[in-house]
């Protein structure tokens, strides 16, 4: 029983991290109708920026305070991600207003490859450390209830908590602020939003900036766990089944989808993996999402699209 609970908790905490990346997809899709394939590349770019600036800034300023270095690196990385957002709008999206969704998707695919390449060219392709003081050693809980207790990974726990806070902040931003409502209006219909005076270009910059910050937080958390390196861009692939499951337009869907995928893949690997040779968690997540789609094609919380003929 304790092992089952450990696996379940591990899955929930992993799922929360997937939600964080999935949120980047949802934000941009909600606000611009663009499925941003570059979200993983943005996570990598942001993580590399954070890791390298936290290394370079102490050298430039001749100081050795890790906390100050991390704060400054985080601020600089926000600026970097804002610059990326501005450039994306200026050089790519502005020229593709009212184009087919497939065109926009392909454009983000191009952005993904560009960011992957240019990120490594500027910041390097080694593994870089992000040390924000995340606890690494595990902790045992409920030792009096279960023999040997339940192992909790403190780092995953802290990461899941930070993710939950960010998700909450974004939900409030989308539901309660004027800008948030404008973002949702743009997503519904570009032309209609423009006709009532919503500045499309500014809104797109804002939403890519918000997605950039989400990518930065995800990059710092994942980078702290795995090191800032190329594989972080593949983390986005883990978030794809989450958005398939949760629905592309729903923030709560991203959260619940993340949790279901996280738990599903861990339980499947542990309890079913050995029957088929193991290593099933990645494709199992997709299978799980596809099974859900059989019953709810729009995802758990996605909006049902009805076209009247």
């Amino acid at each position, binding site marked *: 029983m304790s*092992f089952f609970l450990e696996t379940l908790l591990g899955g929930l905490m992993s799922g929360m991290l997937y939600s964080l990346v999935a949120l980047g997809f949802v934000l941009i899709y909600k606000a611009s109708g663009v499925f941003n394939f570059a979200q993983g590349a943005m996570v990598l770019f942001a993580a590399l920026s954070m890791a390298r600036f936290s290394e370079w800034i102490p050298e430039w300023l001749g100081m050795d305070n890790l906390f100050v270095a991390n704060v400054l690196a985080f601020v600089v990385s926000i600026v970097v991600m804002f610059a990326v957002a501005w450039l994306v709008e200026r050089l790519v999206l502005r020229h593709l207003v009212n184009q087919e969704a497939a065109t926009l998707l392909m454009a983000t695919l191009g952005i993904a490859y560009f960011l992957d390449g240019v990120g490594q060219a500027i910041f390097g392709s*080694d593994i870089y450390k992000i040390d924000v003081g995340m606890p*690494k050693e595990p902790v045992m809980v409920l030792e009096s209830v279960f023999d040997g207790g339940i192992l909790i990974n403190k780092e995953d726990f802290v990461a899941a908590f930070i993710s939950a806070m960010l998700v909450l902040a974004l939900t409030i931003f989308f539901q309660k602020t004027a800008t948030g409502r404008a973002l949702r209006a743009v997503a519904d219909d570009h032309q209609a939003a423009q006709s009532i005076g919503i500045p499309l270009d500014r809104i797109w910059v804002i939403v890519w900036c918000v997605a950039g910050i989400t990518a930065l937080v995800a990059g710092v958390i994942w980078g702290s766990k795995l090191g800032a390196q190329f594989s972080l861009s593949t983390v986005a692939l*883990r978030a794809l089944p989450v958005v398939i499951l949760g629905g592309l337009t729903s923030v709560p869907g991203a959260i619940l989808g993340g949790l279901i995928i996280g738990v599903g893949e861990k339980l499947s690997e542990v309890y079913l993996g050995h029957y088929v040779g193991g*290593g099933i968690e990645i494709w199992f997540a997709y299978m799980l999402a596809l099974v859900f789609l059989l019953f709810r094609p729009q995802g758990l919380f996605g909006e049902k699209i009805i076209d009247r003929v």
Partner: protein
Amino acid sequence: MKLHKLLVAASIAAIGLSAALTAPAAYAAEEQFFPVLAYRTGAYAPNGAPWANGFVDYMKLTNARGGVNGGKMIWEECETAYATDRGVECYERLKGKHGGATAVQPLSTGITFALTEKAPVDKIPVITAGYGRSESQDGSVFGWNFPLIGTYWMGADVLVQHIAKKEGGFDKLKGKKIALVYHDSPYGKEPIALLQERAKMHGFELSLLPVAHPGVEQKATWLQIRQNKPDYVFLWGWGVMNQTAIKEAQATGYPRDKMYGIWWSGAEPDVKDVGDGAKGYNALAMQHGAEPNAKVVKEVLEKLHAKGQGTGPKEEVGQVLYMRGLISSMLQVEAVRVAQDRYGKGKHITGEQMRWGLEHLDLDQKKLDALGFAGVMRPVKTSCLDHMGSAWARIHTWDGKKWNFTSDWYQGDEKVLRPLVISTAGKYAEEKKIVRRTAEDCKK
């Protein structure tokens, strides 16, 4: 629009500049061309780049020493990103350049599998020092593959020998549990046959835990390890998978001193960011470890890096993977020398002649010392039938700051390895309708 035009112009200028910088030198008859299949980008770049730097640096050093009987080494790098399709594409693009490739080193077991059938057709030796197909040690079947100084079966064999010694003998392995955490790829699957053989012999329980590429998600794997409590974990990872495994071991409380990596899971990029969390973690050293004090390392620093002609960062020179690249390069350069002794000093060596050189490598300690490898590696002697040439390894352990050797030398047990090599190579020969080379063939 101005910005667009500027970007287009800048891109064209950049492409032109990079073409000018990477243009190969004009081919001269006595030059030897080596394609460098490297990966400096992508998920495996942190491990691929130091290997490529050492590999290229040794060719530069050879040229700085005056070449091989005056003949210079030339090379061209091609980025594979550790992808088999891109590796094959690189091979096809480069194999005919500059008078033809002398040999190729793919640094990927997947690419090696793909090139194994191409090599006999193109007559280009495929050198796979410490990787590739283990049965390719049998030169009578795999005439063009050279897994010099180490195969995965030999590595796995040495690991089992080491833990048997720690436990007090092979008989003490009965009932023990060993988990193999492996990269779910041809590379990671390579040791399984040998470990299963050893498990049958000694009665230990072997559990197999595959990790999907690139290996960043291992939580479920380590939860299973926590549940099963194996006595030892063997790690067959590459790139980010290695440090993720060590971090997960830390997060689940599995003792790092019970973990043993293959030689591709025991370098600085695998542990440096884990710091104290990796303290006590062990890995196999394919003869060499980190060798900052080796004579050849000092020579590289003096003749190349001090003059700004080195490849990659200076701090990396002498680290584990840099040394692996350096040694891989040295072995091919010395094979050129051996071939030239037979086919004409200073002359261009073809792929076929290079094979002869590789099958007659005889690097005794005196020669190795003269090349600057004293204390780094043991003698290598290949033959037509034995394409490995040396089966020695030792264990090194991370102390939180650096790798230290923590065991004596071990030699792969021929009594276990040879039957497996012969039978598996035999099956391959049968399947591909290959006629084993005879002693007469070996003289050619």
